[in-house]
């Protein structure tokens, strides 16, 4: 099993007391599988994704990636796992503004020490970015930036792609194109995809779907 989350709980302390965001959430995902996580705004989708990405720690429960327990791992190990085994795609793109498109595309692969020029060329080609490689993020449209973010997430050939509302900032036409490219490239790389979205149409394009409501998961 590539990813396993068991009885994951997450709560935040506020001035008005503890707020429970995730309540005994469990899921599993294997290579080649695609899973859509849907839910209303504030239902805890992004929080769950962040816990799986090792960006935050659960209050209780266990999350394992390739058999390694993320909830017990040190900061340094979490960072290594994010570098080498996870590809992250954000709604806000989060490209690095000071690097060119080519540098952004290769950034994570180079951090992980897994730079494969042929694979990067293939990604740039498939994503329609080959002519834009010398540009900076601020010179690109939203759709183009999100395509770069997809390429960056896949560049190190991670086992797991985590996408948080990847089309949330795009118009319909661009959203369609980005999703097609994302699904095609995930299939191409053999990685698993966990996609957070509130769009049921988008979720239908993935092989499995889970719904999160008030912190609880349901099929």
């Amino acid at each position: 099993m590539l990813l396993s989350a068991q009885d994951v709980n997450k709560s935040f302390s506020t001035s008005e007391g503890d707020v429970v965001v995730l309540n005994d959430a469990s899921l599993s995902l294997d290579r080649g599988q695609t899973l859509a996580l849907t839910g209303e705004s504030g239902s805890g989708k992004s929080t769950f994704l962040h816990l799986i990405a090792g960006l935050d720690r659960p209050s209780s429960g266990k999350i394992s990636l390739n058999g390694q327990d993320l909830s017990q791992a040190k900061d340094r190990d979490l960072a290594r796992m994010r570098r080498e085994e996870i590809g992250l795609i954000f709604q806000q793109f989060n490209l690095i503004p000071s690097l060119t498109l080519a540098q952004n595309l290769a950034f994570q692969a180079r951090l992980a020490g897994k730079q494969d020029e042929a694979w990067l060329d293939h990604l740039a080609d498939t994503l329609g970015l080959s002519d834009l490689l010398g540009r900076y993020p601020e010179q690109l449209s939203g759709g183009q930036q999100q395509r770069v973010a997809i390429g960056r997430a896949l560049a190190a050939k991670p086992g797991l792609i985590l996408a948080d509302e990847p089309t949330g900032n795009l118009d319909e036409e661009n959203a369609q194109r980005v999703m097609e490219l994302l699904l095609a490239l995930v299939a191409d790389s053999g990685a698993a995809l966990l996609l957070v979205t509130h769009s049921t149409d988008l979720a239908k394009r993935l092989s499995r779907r889970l719904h999160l409501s008030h912190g609880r998961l349901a099929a």
Partner: protein
Amino acid sequence: MTSAALSALLGHWRKHPGQALALILGLAMATALWSGVQAINSEARASYDRAANVMGQNQIARLASHDGQPIALADFVTLRRAGYLVSPVIEGRIGNGPSAFRVVGIDPLTAPLEALPTPITDGRIAFGDLATSDGLLLMSPETATRVTTEGLPQIREIDEIANGIAITDIATAAELLGQENPSYLLVRSDQPQGLPPITDQSLLRYLEPELTSDISRLTDSFHLNLTAFGLLAFVVGLFIVHATIGLAFEQRRATFRTLRAIGLPLNRLVALLAGEMILVALLAGGMGIIIGYLIAAALLPSVAGSLRGLYGAQVSGELAFDPVWALSAMAIALLGAGFASAQALNRVRLMPILAPAQPRAWAMASARAQTIQTGLALVLFGLSAGLAIFGSSLITGFACLAALLIGAALALPVVGGAVLSGLGHLARSAMAQWALADTRQQLPGLSLALMALLLALAANIGVSTMVGSFRATFTGWLDQRLAAELYVNARNETEAALVLGFLEDHADAVLPYASADTRLGGLPAEIYGYSNNDIYRDNWPFLDALPNAWESVESGEAVLINEQLARRQGFSLGDELRLSAGWSLPISGIYSDYGNPSGQAIIGLDSFKARYPDVPILRFAVRVEGDSATALAAALSEATGLPPENAINQVEVKQLSLRIFEQTFLVTGALNVLTLGVAGFAMLTSMLTLTSMRLMQLAPVWALGQTRATLAWFELARIIGLAFFTFVLALPTGLGLAWILLSIVNVEAFGWKLPMLVFPMEWLRLLGLAVLAALISAAWPALRLSRTPPNSLLKLFTNER
């Protein structure tokens, strides 16, 4: 609406108290350093004005004896009977040590108007009061508190009287000093027509008023130096203010847009923001006045010591509070705030109502702005070079210096960007490439703080190079110039004969010398008569000399002149120097004469005796073996009755000279350290204000697989790297500054040029300070970053930001 808008605008400062503190402290420090220096200058100038009220400042021509002794009453009477308007003065010292003061007794009825102190000329004190049988002493309050001598007449405290001086009626002075004859006669400038020149009628020595070298003129360069440093510190402080205001305005763009959108007129928005700046300026100005006063009060004793040592100017060591100064400090705070916020206010004025609310890629300079900045820097470098080559005044010297400093500051972000871009191409790892590219993007946001650091470092390098060069040259020069072991000064000819007789039996060599005041090239100068000896031939430091310079001087065929005279008059070797009417000699040598503001010439002692037969030979340079100078001085005093202070050991002279030297640069050093401190503060405020914005750039890199600790170390390394780069740029700038100070400003201000020496250990010390300042400024933001909860970073990836 206005109060609601004001509340919305001021809310920013409640949310960002650190930024508010940086703004107020930055402006307060800028105001404090500038106004502190102004307070020192104004106190010194007030002292000069007081001094100018006393005849001791040689503002009026006078007749005196050649040997410095009182003149015969008969000489005075003869001149008066012949119709000349001369007025007697009896002058002398009372008391010892710190309580000593100089009594100047004048004859109010005959003294020239300009010789009378202001309280008499403006009627506050009647002539009669001064001449009462009980006597009356006019002195400054500071002098009055120091006086311990008993049996003095009544003392009246007058602010306008210079420190250390008491003015009284001539009869009172005669009684106090036990001296009947006048010390000298004042010569009125409006002598009756038809009389022959007074110099033809009197054998007394005629001393012209020294209009060209009065104290305030001499000290002008010193005060200009202080003002330049005050201005530099002010500019460095304004960098902080400008950066903070710019950031606060950027962060409030959304607020501005909203206020405009809901109907606040543009003019009112601008007026509210200007009002906000005025409030800040008033608050910071008030703080600046207090800090400035404290700085001035702390530095004034050192300044007073420097001015006393360098020019003999008596400056009060106590600072009086002057409301005019406080008002001008407040004005400079308002002006500084206006200057620093003008650009930001103008940007608000021109901002379209629907301008995007996102901060721009924080002040990411456009290519056009970079081009303009580069062009301006090149123009300023050209201007600096032009002024260095063609300028010929103190003002052009300082303008040359300012152009170099501002040019270097403007060039810093441009050169930094180019260097980072070049390194980025060479970088192998992804993190190194990111760090360099990210730093390049951050450069505009940090450049103001880095410019401030560059200016402070360059000033420190420049001044330390100048002072170090000066110290090394001066020490070596003193060693050569003071080659004799003992310098003896007899009080009169009888004593001189006794001294000479004793020394001829007990010393290896006795070299008599004498001097007289004269005018050379139209300016007051001194002429010395030296006897020739191997000691001068072997040790005397020449800047330039013909072969056998001393031999030709001894034979009366040539003259030696000091560098000051050579530079002022454009003399070079072989030129004829007119020593008096019908007496000219060719110049055979030019020597350095540090610390002497006047021109000087040396002729052979025999020629001197022939030309100045009335000047007695009272001074002797004495050579003795080894370290027996002290014993010889003691024996000399015992044998001849010469006061011990009239036989000065060479070692004591050197120590005194070096003490005066160190004192002179104490203030400059203190201002340098303060400027560096302000620059460090500029870096700290920039780093603190940029921290929150940095998270947006760092969070993606963290998410892609770096720990917060790694990123914190990168942040530290980045700032240290920038400080190092700034130092590398500051080094040639500082050396250029030192060259300008040594070769242009010094020559114009003092009349001497110094060789430039370099002090790499001092550079290392400054590099260490720059790195330390960078570390201190980046440590807290880096620590905060390493401890930022993941939740705060995650917010940046969601719509919550």
